[in-house]
Structures are given as C-alpha cells and as structure tokens.
C-alpha cells in the first residue's frame, strides 16, 4: 500500500485502487495495465496529452463507460476495497457514491432548487423540509448559497458560467457522495470563476476524495495533492507513467517523459 504525507498527515492510498486495469473500445486498447492507489480526503490530478486515456480512466471510476457499446474491461477498480465492476454492484448506487462534474456546466433547465433536489428525490427523499435542508446545505458547501438564496425558484440557466458549475457541484453533493470526479471542470470558466472553483475544491477535499482531469498544468499544481501523469504508447494505448505527490512531480519528476511534458517540451 502506498502511503503519502499530505499536508503533514499520512494518507493511505486505499480509497480507490486500480489493479492491472486494461480498457478497450472494441479492438482498440485505450488503457494498458494501470495500477494506481488513490488516497481518500485528498485531490488527485490526472494530467497528460490529449488521447492519453485520462478521461477514459476517470469515466471508469463511476462506470460511465458501461454505456459505450463494445467497451471491455480487464482488471479491477476497488472503491473501499470492493471491486466496482462486480456483478452485484448497483451502478446507480455507485454513481451516487461517485459523482461527476463535467467540462461544461450542465444544469437542468429547471429552477435552482429543483436542480439540487432532483437527485435526493430520485433516491427517495420526498419531504419538503428535508429537501429544503439538503438544497441549502449543498449550496452552502458549494459556496453558492449566498449568491442564490433569494432566487431559488429562478431558472438555473440564468446563472453565470461559474455559478452554474458550482450549482453542478452542489447537485453532486446533494446525494452525499464520497468521491467527486471532475473532468476539466474549469475549462469553460473565466480566471476568477476558476479560482473560486479551486478554492471550493480545497475546502471539499477535507471531506471528499476528488479526482480531477485537467489540461491546465498550473491548475493541477495549484489544487492537487497527488498527480498522475498518463501518456499514449506507440499503439495509442494510454498508460500511467508516473504518480506521486504533486509537489514532487512538479519540481522533481522521476521520469524524463514527465519532465518533458510538464516543462512543455512535448505534448
């Protein structure tokens, strides 16, 4: 088991463990032999050039790739020691536990309140008081409450891009996940909105395991505790080149390919 010293605390890389993971789209191998131990209560960044499989890996973590025809998985991904690909795993439960925030904010075209209440309702929460409490808490955790508390009935689409993205984060939080996956969550946002999301991520990392895919190296350096560098092999399969503490990866990477990528010499 890999152990990390994160912010003065020893964290064990035991929240999520990918073991000998191979992933195929039909005959095309997208990921090869990924072994990665991701610690809980921390932010892990996945970086790498386009097509290196980082988004594919992220999507495997809540089985979003299940929906892709012809995709096939070998190996395991364990969440808290349990393989998420096991037959008895309920994928709806898994996705409640492992939420996802996408590149472009995608609020539903309904009110702010209903956006947040949508998930809890699906999971059986009906009482108005309970839903109000969830909506308020989720919006507070996502640092959006003060900006929207007087207009919860308004359409979510009227919010700014940065607010919409925080709304999407609140929507994920409303179903009390353990893990939050973020696929380029700031690429459609301006610098101020980006910094707000990053601040929010740091706050959330105290209670949630966050995994972020980003092309923005500075963002990975700013926000994450550990960083994984993926690269495309000659046959275009993605593989993990190096994984370690962000502070190490960005000052003293062990692998020449990581060095070349983060210093902008290739990719």
């Amino acid at each position: 088991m890999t152990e990390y010293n994160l912010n003065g605390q020893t964290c064990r890389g035991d929240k999520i463990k990918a073991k000998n993971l191979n992933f195929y789209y039909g005959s095309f191998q997208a990921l090869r032999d990924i072994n990665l131990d991701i610690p809980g209560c921390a932010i892990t960044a996945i970086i790498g050039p386009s097509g290196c499989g980082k988004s594919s890996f992220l999507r495997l973590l809540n089985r979003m790739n299940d929906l892709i025809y012809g995709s096939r998985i070998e190996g395991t991904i364990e969440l808290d020691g349990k393989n998420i690909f096991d037959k008895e795993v309920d994928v709806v439960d898994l996705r409640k536990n492992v939420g996802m925030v996408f590149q472009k904010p995608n609020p539903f075209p309904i009110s702010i309140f209903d956006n947040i209440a949508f998930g809890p309702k699906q999971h059986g929460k009906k009482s108005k008081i309970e839903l109000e409490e969830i909506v308020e808490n989720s919006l507070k955790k996502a640092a959006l409450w003060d900006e929207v508390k007087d207009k919860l009935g308004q359409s979510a689409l009227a919010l700014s891009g940065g607010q919409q993205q925080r709304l999407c984060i609140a929507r994920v939080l409303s179903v009390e996940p353990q893990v939050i996956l973020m696929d380029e969550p700031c690429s459609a946002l301006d610098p101020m909105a980006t910094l707000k999301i990053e601040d929010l991520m740091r706050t959330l990392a105290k209670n949630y395991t966050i995994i972020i895919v980003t092309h923005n190296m500075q963002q990975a350096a700013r926000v994450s505790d550990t960083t994984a560098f993926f690269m495309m092999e000659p046959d275009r399969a993605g593989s993990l080149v190096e994984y370690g503490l962000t502070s190490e990866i960005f000052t003293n990477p062990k692998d020449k390919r990581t060095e070349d990528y983060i210093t902008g010499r290739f990719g």
Partner: protein
Amino acid sequence: MEIRTDFNRRLREIQDDILIMGSMVETAIITSIKALKERDIDMAQQLINDDALINRKRFEIEEKCIKLIATQQPLAGDLRTIISVLNILTELERVGDYAAGISKIVLMIGNEEHLKPLIDIPRMADKTTLMLRESLDAFIKQDADKARAVIAEDDDVDNLYDQVFRELLTFMIEDPRTITRATRLIWAAHNLERSADRVTNICERIIYIVTGKMEELGASNY
C-alpha cells in the same frame, strides 16, 4: 521542431549571463590579489568602483529570472534551474564583495611594506578562481559529479588559510609591532577562504539542479 523556442532561448541567455557575471567576479579576485601583491592603490580603488558593475549585472539577471517565472511558469528542471540561478547570483555577488573587501584592505595598507613576500595568499586566490571556473563549467554542463569534486577542493583552500594564519601568528608573537600588518593579511586571506566557501554553495545548487536534492556538502571549518 523545438517546442518552447522562446523560453529555451531566454533560459540559455540567463545561463550565458551567469558565465559573464562569473568571469567578472573571477577577474575581480585576480585583480584584487594583484593589487595586494603590488600594493597598487589605484588598481584597488578602480576595483572597488567596478564592484557596482557586478551588482548591476546581478540585478539584471535577477530581473530576467523573475520575468521568466512570472510569464512562463517554469516547472521541474526549468524551475530548479531558475531558482538555483537566483541563489547562484547571490553567491557570485558576495564573492565580488570579498574581492572589493580585499581592495579596501589594500587601501588600508597603503604604501606600507608587506611583512614578507606573498606566496600562499596568491595560491589561495589561484585555487579559489580555479574552483569558481570549474563550478561554472559544471553549471553549464549540468554535471553533479564535477560539482561534488569542486566542493572537495575547498579543503585545499582551507589548508592554505590555516598555513597563512599560523605563519602570520608567528610573526605577531615574535614582534607585536607586526600585528596590524599581519592582521590585514589575515583579513585578505579570510576573504579568499570565504569566497571558496561561496563557490561550494554554488556547487550545492548545481547538484540540486541535476538531482533535485538539496545536499549540504561544503561544511567548512570556518
């Protein structure tokens, strides 16, 4: 096609600047010892004035580094190089100050005869300037082994300093009237000893650039 052409060019320019500043500092040491040997007050005064040029060069390079950090967000080996350059600049600038310090001692000595012909102090200067040249060579070649070898050479300078100190002490014990003159020469030798220590600091930075590890290797007795 080379990626980050502009960044690479600017980084190389900074490395070249370090070489230029290094050779300015080397010349300052050589000149200060020449002025000491020949008790040449004009030469010493000129060198004290010229120290401003070294200081100016230092700020010029420092500014280039700050601009590169601010605009290019260097990482990994690039980041280590630029941060180390900022440290190396300080060390070089201090060696320049030591040379100016020796020149100030020359002014104090004025026309007074030396106690004895200077032999070991010029040797210390030769050794120190050689170490400086080798350290800059190691910097350009990114050669950690060479940097370690230069650090080991500091013992020679320390031994020479011991020798100078003991010898001048004997003069002072024999004849207290020599104390002022002997002390001034000890100061000059001490400036050289410290210069060599600064060179070992430069070498530690070179090792950091190459290996990413901070090693304290040049622990001096003084």
